[in-house]
């Protein structure tokens, strides 16, 4: 006879005992046209913002966790013209899209910032403009895009049983 649902203590220590437990919450769907890439990595909220006027130009923008200093420049390291001591429109877009993708709580925790009710994330990021190299983030973005060029596989990947698709609406 198959065991019933009652003999496993799944709730209490599910994270430690289960094989297929979800560790990284899935990203929430968002529009990618303006901000195609956002990540919480290397101690920064960083990403890539497409230029509104030139399809080939992108801006690399970032906020540093803790200090909340920010930077924005083109992928060729030319400083963004809109950066006057406070976040430019690219940085504002980056912060807003990060909140859509990861949820406010996760982004605020990563940046170590308190966001009160009624506040936006970006209004609480009161650091100063800093110089950061765009190259590293831009190359991570290119690596990200390169996934879309990996050919499909038709041999089974049994290891994916550890990674169930989830997230159906309630």
């Amino acid at each position, binding site marked *: *006879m*198959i*065991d*019933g*649902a009652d*003999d*496993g203590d*799944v709730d209490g220590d*599910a*994270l*430690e*005992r*289960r*094989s*297929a*437990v979800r*560790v*990284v919450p*899935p*990203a*929430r*769907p*968002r*529009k*990618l046209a303006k901000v*195609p890439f956002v990540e919480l*990595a*290397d101690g920064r909220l960083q990403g890539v913002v*497409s230029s509104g006027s030139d*399809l*080939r130009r*992108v801006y690399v923008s970032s906020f540093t966790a803790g200090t909340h200093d920010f930077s924005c420049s083109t992928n060729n390291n030319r400083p963004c013209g809109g950066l006057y001591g406070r976040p430019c429109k690219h940085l504002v877009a980056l912060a807003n899209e990060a909140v859509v*993708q990861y949820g406010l709580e996760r982004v605020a925790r990563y940046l170590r910032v308190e966001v009160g009710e009624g506040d936006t994330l970006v209004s609480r990021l009161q650091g100063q403009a800093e110089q950061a190299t765009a190259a590293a983030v831009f190359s991570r*973005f*290119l690596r990200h*895009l*390169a*996934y*879309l*060029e*990996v050919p*499909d*596989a*038709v*041999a*089974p*990947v*049994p*290891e*994916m*049983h*550890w*990674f*169930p*698709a*989830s*997230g*159906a*609406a*309630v």
Partner: protein
Amino acid sequence: MAEEHLAALAGGRAALFGAVHDALLARLDGCAGRERAEWREPGRGEDTAANLLAGCRSWLTELAITGWRGVDHDLVSSADPTLEALLARPALRRQAVLLDGLAAELRASCPVATLERVPARRWADLWTRAVLLARGAGEEEPAETVSGRLLVLGVDVHEHGTAVQAQVHGVLETRDAARLVRTSVTAAKVDTIVGPAVWRLLTGHPVLMGALAGRLTLNLKDMPLLAGGDLLWHDDRASAGEPADPFATARVVLPRAVAPPVPPLDRHPVRIAEPVLLEGYKARRETLELDGTTLAIDTGRLPACGPLTPALVAASTECVGLMRWDGGRWAVQPLAVRATVKKKPVEAHTGDWALGPADPKIAKAEARTGDAVAVLRERAGRLLRA
């Protein structure tokens, strides 16, 4: 500690879980009255990736010596060059997808020392499998090619940030036999492609996707079949046939289908995914009452890319699903349900949206966020080759 010691440790752990897998599957086969074919070791091609696999082994060794609690950004990032090289080699896709999934979880958990709890069972599973895959063994050769009719039971979707796999379960009818088989297509993706958009990554297999969305039989001609019961899908060797009801397949054809053996390396409880038909039960939010027994519903395996929801499952009276074992208990993962909603009969399958969402509400939500795949492909086209 040398690599060989860690390999022995991984081998021992895998053997233990393999034995648990065998016992569970034997019990399930007994309950379902399922006959299972015997394993025959297939031929293998040459092992051609010694250097890359050595890179994997050294990262996995580093990980083991450091311990989960010591993992930081630098250690995780040190796998990046190896991962990139693995992804470029189709024969190493299993290792690539596994390590990428593990690395992403470690990265999101960094510094691991500050975590309240560590997913110890899971990460040890993933590490163990990666160590074994990194020991190398050439690509498996198909045991045979088959022709016949594939009756789909349902599709199980697997997904992490950078990969999605649609694994179809079905019964293959050939001239003289009915066999339970699977076929899988895997695409690379990025974390911002989620929900129904993942199907857009699989449009290179139009016959298979069309059969899922339209609930059609598939006629196969000379399709390669691996020893473990996996068809290597070639869309040009298949054509869509008559409509077929997966519930009828599960009721009529599944009971006489012979199940495939499990490849030795794959023997782990997490891989148990046996199709069953359940009916005459009473569903609740998290469980089914069936013949005086309570069976858990694995609501965590209802994918966002299909129409099945916990509410629909709770309203259901019939279900084609996969039997799963995790956390010390059995659960059913629904692939299709028949339910009564507002006094009307409703039927939903995980593959219903394989050609795009049929639900106008979902289609509208998708239109609002735009086509993520198209946006990123445009960016890739412009920037990767700039």
